């Protein structure tokens, strides 16, 4: 008989709020928030649409310590407006990344976003461009910017583009990374190409396991706050460059991906080509078995 353990101590990253994730990630009690909810810096645009506002505009930013070292942190709240980037939300992140350079401190971005917030689409789009530039500038100063992906909203749209600028990405199986959402693909291409309600299809096309296998993410962890914490500590130890060597390596890596898998119709074909035994079983594998099966995955070490 299998013993069932109660989930009394663990914190599911997928389920946790932005604030719970930060609390569980950093050294206990070490977090200081910048522009906290008491300052009520809310979106000035949602009222136009008669939509409710949130005191922190859906992102919590500040500084904490990770294994003793100071680190700047941003956590998106995927349940508020789908974690989408609006003007204030985006500017808090932009400011944090600019602060990283000024203070010479690494950054963790806890993504949980559907992309740009449509009600302030232009501001959100520009914020994403500004954040990407700030990430690259911080990395060129020798800083690490690590993305953590495993929330309800995934990491979609412009969020996924910011993710692509990070020095390392940590993902759980639940995490999804994609520019276009499933519904958007279905609307544009028809249900025959992509049935957005087929969640197994969605996950094997955009989910954490697939991204890890093709090198779209660097570390694969359980849906556990402590697993994310451990991975974040490790991720900050590597990948402190963003120069022509790194981008040339990424160019080679991404070209190779197109050559190897460009004709694949489905993720399972890609996993097969990667030499995974029983590729159709991949979605059902528990983490340890998956990591063994992923031995020959593509990786992006120093090529991101």
């Amino acid at each position, binding site marked *: 008989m299998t013993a069932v353990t109660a989930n009394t101590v663990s914190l599911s990253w997928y389920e946790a709020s932005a604030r719970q994730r930060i609390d569980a990630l950093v050294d206990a009690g070490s977090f200081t928030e910048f522009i906290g909810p008491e300052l009520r810096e809310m979106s000035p645009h949602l009222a136009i649409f008669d939509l409710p506002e949130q005191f922190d505009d859906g992102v919590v930013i500040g500084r904490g310590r990770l294994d003793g070292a100071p680190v700047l942190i941003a956590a998106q709240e995927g349940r508020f407006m789908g974690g989408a980037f609006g003007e204030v939300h985006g500017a808090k992140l932009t400011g944090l990344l600019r602060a990283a350079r000024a203070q010479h401190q690494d950054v963790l971005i806890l993504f949980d976003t559907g992309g740009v917030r449509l009600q302030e689409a232009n501001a959100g789009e520009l914020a994403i*461009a500004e954040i*990407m*530039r700030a990430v690259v500038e911080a990395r060129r100063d020798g800083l690490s910017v690590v993305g953590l992906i495993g929330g309800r909203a995934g990491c979609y749209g412009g969020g996924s583009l910011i993710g692509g600028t990070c020095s390392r990405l940590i993902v759980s199986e639940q995490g999804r990374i994609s520019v276009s959402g499933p519904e958007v693909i279905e609307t544009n291409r028809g249900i025959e190409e992509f049935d957005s309600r087929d969640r197994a299809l969605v996950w094997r096309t955009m989910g954490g396991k697939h991204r890890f296998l093709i090198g779209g993410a660097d570390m694969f962890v359980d849906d556990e706050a402590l697993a994310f914490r451990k991975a974040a500590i490790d991720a900050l130890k590597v990948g402190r460059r963003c120069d022509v060597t790194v981008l040339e390596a990424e160019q080679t890596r991404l070209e190779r991906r197109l050559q190897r898998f460009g004709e694949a119709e489905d993720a399972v074909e890609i996993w097969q080509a990667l030499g995974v035994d029983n590729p159709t079983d991949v979605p059902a594998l528990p983490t340890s078995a998956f990591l063994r099966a992923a031995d020959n995955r593509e990786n992006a070490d120093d090529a991101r």
Partner: protein
Amino acid sequence: MTLDDILAGLFPTGSKIETTGAIIAGQAVLPDGRPIHVLGITQGQPLGVDEAILLAGHVIEIVKSGDRAPILFLVDSASQRMSKRDELLGLSEYLSHLAKTLLLAEAEGHRTVGLLYGGSAAGAFIATALATGTLVALPGAHPAVMDLPSMGRVTKLPIDVLKAKAEATPVFAPGLDNMTQTGGIHAIWDADAPLAPRLAAVMQRPKGQDDRDRLGAKRGGRRKAAEIADRVVALAATSYQGAQHG
């Protein structure tokens, strides 16, 4: 204006630029005799993994050449390609990679100027035009995050209501003026004036910090972003000193 008209206007002394599929690549000479690289995406095409990797490859070659010549990036695209294949292959990485190469070029001494002369939207806009050091546009260009009908579907608001709201704020509706007011576009060129001097003027602009949020504040289209970002930078400085001393 057609692409040929634009290129002729920009480079009266001649250029060697080819368009392969939707990808523009080549070189030209500025009126002062200096060389300039020309890249871009044209014909209102979507930007997918195949296009992004080609463009990024060109940028990397330019950076590796060490010539520090400026790069003009022309944009008339749709949005990112919304397909299963592109997402299966990790489109976000390809678009980010392209953006990173442009940001790298700027940082490595190549001035990067984006010229938006047609459409562009969403991820394609971020990965191209918005990743250049200075973005200018020609009249008639039409950047968007999402078109209004799609926006209507998502927000469950009728188009008329959205249009009325768009009158009150530049913050959400598509269009060149809105994107300019929010600071995303440095300047809209006058279509009737010669283009070459305008390009030369942009090249004169001192290279520096990302000032789009400041432009947005100045133009009234994005009043909060710059102030919020500045406050975060200031808070991070003071709180850290406090923490170190405390």
